[in-house]
């Protein structure tokens, strides 16, 4: 078990180090998030709706679109130099590779998610509500399910000639539970409602993340077989 965790940690470390040195994906996702918020600002007629009322939905959509931008390239760097073969031929089992990649993606996406919330606070005068901790939890659970599905299908789409174009078509229909429970939880917490009111949502987000992680860990080896 120690060896297994060690293997996962090695993959996570490798991916995060690569990202730290190139800063390609995180920069793209962060820039996307800020620019999307700028566009949203002009897309909303403030005499009709107040941005605070729809902030939760905008936050999640920014995370989903911006996140796919980075997650879709999970395997690009390794595909270029055939480095993926090396990773797959290493003694680490395929599910450890998947979990490692998912955790590394999660770290990136969570940084972006926090940035998105920060940008919305700054741009739209958003208030964090009474329980920032529960908000952080909702974002984390939602992001976890999202990166697990995203990582699995990023491996699928990068094996096709449609590439990243295919990714949203594969992932969006599956993301509906995350979007529904995530946005309602976020919206209610931002609106200052008590945490007890979103406990059910958090549980469903957790269930979604668990299903996504187990499905991904079980099926990843069939995706990267050749």
């Amino acid at each position: 078990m120690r060896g297994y965790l060690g293997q996962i940690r090695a993959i996570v470390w490798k991916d995060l180090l690569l990202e730290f040195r190139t800063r390609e994906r995180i920069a793209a996702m962060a820039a996307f998030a800020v620019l999307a918020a700028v566009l949203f600002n002009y897309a909303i007629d403030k005499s009709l709706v107040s941005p605070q009322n729809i902030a939760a939905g905008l936050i999640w959509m920014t995370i989903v679109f911006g996140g796919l931008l980075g997650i879709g390239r999970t395997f690009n760097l390794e595909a270029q130099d055939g480095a993926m073969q090396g990773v797959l031929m290493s003694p680490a089992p395929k599910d450890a590779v998947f979990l490692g990649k998912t955790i590394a993606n999660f770290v990136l996406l969570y940084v972006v998610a926090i940035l998105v919330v920060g940008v919305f606070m700054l741009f739209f005068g958003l208030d964090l509500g009474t329980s920032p901790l529960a908000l952080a939890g909702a974002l984390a659970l939602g992001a976890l399910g999202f990166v697990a599905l995203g990582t699995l299908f990023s491996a699928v789409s990068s094996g096709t000639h449609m590439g990243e174009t295919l990714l949203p078509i594969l992932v969006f229909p599956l993301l509906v539970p995350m979007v529904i429970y995530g946005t309602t939880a976020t919206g209610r917490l931002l609106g200052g409602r008590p945490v007890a009111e979103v406990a059910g949502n958090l549980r469903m987000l957790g269930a979604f993340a668990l299903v996504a992680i187990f499905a991904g860990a079980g099926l990843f080896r069939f995706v990267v077989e050749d």
Partner: protein
Amino acid sequence: MSVRGLRIGGTSLAVLGLLLVGLVFGLSFFWVSTEASQGIAQRIFYIHVPAAWVAFLAFGIVALTSAMYLWLRDDRLDRAALAAAEGGMIFATIMLTTGPLWGKIAWGTYWTWEPRLTLTLLLWFIYLGYFLVRSSSENAERGKRFAAVVGIVGALDIPLIHLSVVWFRSLHPQPVVVKPDAPSLPGDMLSLLMLGLLAFTLLFFGLFLLRYALETLRDAADARERRATT
């Protein structure tokens, strides 16, 4: 079963299914009693509900055969998954076209974010992803694996999607047949619905067998071509 047997079986099932679908059409217009509150528009129910049943049944077959394909790597399982997916997509399309037609009259709008409607739309897109993954993979064997993964993850996610969209909102008429107490549907309506289910199921399995036979022939032709070129 030989390809010839598959084609004979498929053709007879499909023809029988089509005849029964014709009968269901006739009976739903001229025989069954008109539903009191929804009036004449409710007659589309005998097409809509069986189509929905087959669309979800087909996805069950896709998921099951996909999982078995990944396990056993038998091309016949992959062909079955493909045949079921194509059939399922047709019936999901029927359900998605008949539903809004009824909705326009009963609810006053073609589209509403009603859970079952939403679920079918998403099912339709999962099917679409299934075909896109298959057709955009350079090597056929990889396409089969990828498609199987899409089918399995879709099937795992569908219950969660269902829960979430129901939780989001429910406007749809409540179930009238499969529910804890006895069916509340009057006798003639229930019989016609059952006939519709039978007709669509037979039609589906007829199309399924024909599609399966076609794919078998295509694989055989590909194999011959490969042998000829090498």
